């Protein structure tokens, strides 16, 4: 049973997480003006269709607004935190070119993203045990190859406390 829609791959988590553009902290608002007809707006239309969901997924706190058929030529406009506005002309450009350009001017670079991922990894140590919400495992019995929880699988007689106590009592005598 295939997914519904024109390009349903846009509606998968894997596609959304593959978004390249992570905006810098100063970018607050992104506005796209494009036209619904015309060859010059084709790149902008494809950009809105394919890439805007990826951008919004990676930047949930940036407000993105679309305006259709307001001006003859398509453009992007970014509003930064200090009141500055960045205007990007996208007339005639391919949607991949637009993403590359936006990434270059206002996106976090690969190095910064890697450093952030590393810092995040350092915070959560996989060797720690605890509640499922914060850690990978709660008890050593969940690890493969370790003694399973006696509630699920009965322990062999030699490991039970009462057998050992009986042995100790017999050996003492």
């Amino acid at each position: 049973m295939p997914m519904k829609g024109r390009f349903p791959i846009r509606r998968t988590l894997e596609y959304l997480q593959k978004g390249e553009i992570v905006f810098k902290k100063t970018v607050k608002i992104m506005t796209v003006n494009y036209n619904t007809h015309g060859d010059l707006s084709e790149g902008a239309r494809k950009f809105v269709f394919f890439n805007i969901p990826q951008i919004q997924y990676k930047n949930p706190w940036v407000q993105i607004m679309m305006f259709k058929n307001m001006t003859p030529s398509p453009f992007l406009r970014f509003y930064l935190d200090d009141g500055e506005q960045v205007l990007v002309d996208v007339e005639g450009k391919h949607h991949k070119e637009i993403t590359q350009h936006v990434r270059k001017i206002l996106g976090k670079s690969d190095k910064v993203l890697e450093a952030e991922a590393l810092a995040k990894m350092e915070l959560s140590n996989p060797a720690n045990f605890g509640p499922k919400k914060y850690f990978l495992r709660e008890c050593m019995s969940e690890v493969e190859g370790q003694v399973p929880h006696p509630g699920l699988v009965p322990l062999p007689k030699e490991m039970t406390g009462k057998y050992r106590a009986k042995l100790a009592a017999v050996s003492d005598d």
Partner: protein
Amino acid sequence: MSGRQASVHAKWIIGQVIGTKMKKTAKVRVTRLVLDPYLLKYYNKRKTYFAHDALEQCTVGDVVLLKALPEKRSKHVKHELADIVYKVGQVVDPLTGKRVAGKQYLEPLTESTEDAEVSLTEKLGQLNITASAPPSPS
């Protein structure tokens, strides 16, 4: 408590004006894209904000940029009008600076070339280039 916190989470927002019946206040509708958790598709979610507009220069249908005030002005007003981005009926194309309506320019893009040619010939005529040598000062 560590320092004063901003009155609102959103510092800058863009929205469309839907009402101006209040004195010096504009009702602005802001749309944000929200992911539907099952369909995994983004839809516009609306929220109305009230913005302080000291000069009452907004009309219904303008697209405006709002800035968060450092502290609330009244119970509902937490933003002020920073800039009118697109005034309804008088949209200015930021790339060229000309007035625009939909896909057409209302103002001509270039100056008409005829005037330029006429003035050029006039200017050449005024130059008075002659072959005679100027009188030498002595």
